[in-house]
């Protein structure tokens, strides 16, 4: 895994480097300073002497903003999610979080039946400006603290979805999400939080990135071409962007130039960038840690198979987790999570086979 570190960091770029945790925290702090309607709500996020959420993102914020704005809840995911929906309807801009994305299933009704529909059911009169943050990814904690759940929410009309792969995007997208008038699911990968601080992840990446001191916002719906290449398009998100980039490096040494696209937001999705790339390369590989069947990669494949079929020079391939729960044992978990090797092998087979 250590090979993965900084494969994306461009050494030439000057500036202040932050981890994703720091970038997220800074986004929250800036938005809370700017707009007092922004509040945080969740478990163990503000307790004195506590964790600042499961992964320290909110650490210190209750010192600055007090417990009225950094609201510690009981362990009641459905309830506090619904309260966030109500508070958003009432004019606040709540940023809620679950400690692990796996627990979103408990709040699924409030997210899919209420947050996502209130605007529609009201005939367009209402808005639900809330953000729900959720850490995803397998980290040898067993099957209930491990899932990458993006695809379940990808299927809910009315929700928007961000899944940043680096500190710059994390900060810019979170600030945008908070200002947006729609409910946003904001997925963060545990192994990208960085390895500083008390709650470090073994196997975590040192993803420090330049984050400007000046304020900036990053729009939803804009994918990022992380690496250009003419032979094959690789579409990925979160941790998989880093693996895809490393795979691209390896492939380049073997004469295959891969274009790597970081989707950044799943809803809205930047179809234009993906279609444009596939039309140039003629080959598509989609990489996600979420499981295969019904994962968001299927939609990418389906849209390409609808819109760009004439450009395809080979089958559309997906490198994803298999259709299993997440196993605990590291040997099995490493098999479960898509590896750089699997990406390399799939691309090679596609380009040469």
């Amino acid at each position, binding site marked *: 895994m250590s090979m993965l570190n900084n494969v994306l960091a461009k050494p030439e770029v000057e500036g202040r480097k932050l981890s994703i945790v720091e970038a997220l925290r800074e986004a929250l702090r800036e938005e809370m300073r700017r707009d007092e309607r922004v509040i945080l709500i969740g478990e163990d996020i503000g307790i004195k002497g506590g964790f600042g959420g499961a992964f320290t993102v909110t650490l210190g914020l209750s010192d600055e903003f007090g417990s009225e704005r950094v609201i510690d809840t009981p362990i009641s995911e459905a309830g506090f999610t619904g*309260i966030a*929906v109500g508070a958003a309807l009432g004019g606040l801009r709540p940023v809620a979080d679950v400690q692990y994305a796996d627990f979103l299933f408990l709040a699924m*009704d409030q997210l899919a*039946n209420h947050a996502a529909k209130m*605007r529609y059911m009201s005939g367009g009169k209402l808005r639900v400006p809330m953000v729900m943050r959720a850490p995803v990814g397998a980290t040898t904690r067993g099957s209930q603290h491990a899932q990458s759940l993006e695809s379940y929410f990808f299927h809910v009309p*009315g929700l928007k979805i961000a899944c940043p792969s680096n500190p710059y995007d994390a900060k810019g997208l979170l600030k945008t999400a908070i200002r947006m008038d729609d409910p946003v699911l904001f997925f963060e990968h545990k192994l990208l939080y960085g390895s500083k601080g008390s709650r470090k992840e073994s196997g975590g990446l040192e993803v420090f990135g330049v984050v400007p001191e000046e304020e900036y916002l990053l729009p939803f719906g804009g994918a990022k071409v992380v690496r250009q290449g003419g032979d094959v398009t690789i579409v990925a998100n979160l941790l998989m962007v880093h693996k895809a980039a490393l795979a691209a490096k390896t492939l380049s040494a073997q004469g295959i130039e891969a274009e790597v696209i970081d989707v950044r937001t799943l809803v809205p999705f930047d179809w234009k960038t993906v279609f444009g790339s596939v039309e140039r390369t003629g080959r598509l590989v989609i990489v996600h840690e979420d499981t295969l069947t019904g994962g968001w990669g299927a939609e990418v494949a389906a849209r390409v198979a609808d819109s760009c079929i004439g450009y395809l020079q080979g089958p559309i391939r997906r490198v994803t987790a298999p259709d299993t729960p997440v196993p605990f044992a590291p040997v099995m978990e490493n098999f479960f999570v898509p590896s750089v090797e699997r990406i390399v092998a799939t691309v090679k087979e596609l380009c040469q086979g």
Partner: protein
Amino acid sequence: MTSSLLTKERLLGMYRKMLLCRMFEDRVNSLFLQGRMPGTIHQAQGQEASAVGVCEALSPGDMLTSTHRPHEHAVARGIPVKALMAELFAKSTGCCHGKGGSMHMGDAELGMLPAIAIVGGGIPLATGYALSFKYLKKPNIAACFFGDGAVNEGIFHETVNMAAIWDLPVVFICENNKYGASTPIDSVMKVKTVSARASAYGIPGRTIDGNDVVSVYEAVSEAGERARSGQGPALLELETYRFAGHSRSDPGHYRSKQEVAEWKTKDPISRFETRYLAEGFLTREIIDRCRASVEQELNDAVEFAESSPSPLPEECLADVYAE
């Protein structure tokens, strides 16, 4: 009792509102039976004292949430019956532009969120609204209707607990009409009253005669003042009964005829009439005038609804996202 605080005008207004609720439901029923309305409906005839007593205790800026059985709540909250009727007729002049329908009627600008048809699902919305009121230091409260069936949903438990620990300005109002669909409440709960559950959250709980509009008004006013002054939520149980089936297709064979008949003797509207006819300030003439004016209002509403345009099919695609 504080009923003396209610002026005659106020009482008469409440009476007319109860009539409007009842006659709205009756009209909707007949329109539905004539096949002039799409969808399904859950009617609330018999529960007018609850709807009106609660809404009468609310201020304009307060927020009400409702359930799959929202017609009378919406009427009592003062949403124009035209807009409600048009919504039931699936017209673009409806309070939700035809996107909501019977189970989602409401208008937040007029103090009622679109009703929530997931049993218990509206409870955290009201509570979240209350959080925003408290946070924004507004003098308002949220009032949250739900049925006896909802108190066995986990969301009830989670949310009432949070409202309690944070002293949020919300009044939880359980319309205990003894049944959740076909299921008698005493078969799904061992405690005798819903209000007994308040003690698990350390908040006040009261069981009230939900067919007496004045009692309801007083109890909600009291709980509302408490909540408004920062003392936190309360759980009120209004004992009532629905005269009709659970939904239009339900003949209600799980209830005995005797039970239904008994509750009909407690009809909130005739009880009101009997009492205030006896007290002398209500007269047959006033009743007739009220009925006639309600009738007219409903005629107008139906005409408005029927003559309103349907939404365009493609409007299906609008209103998913704000931006």
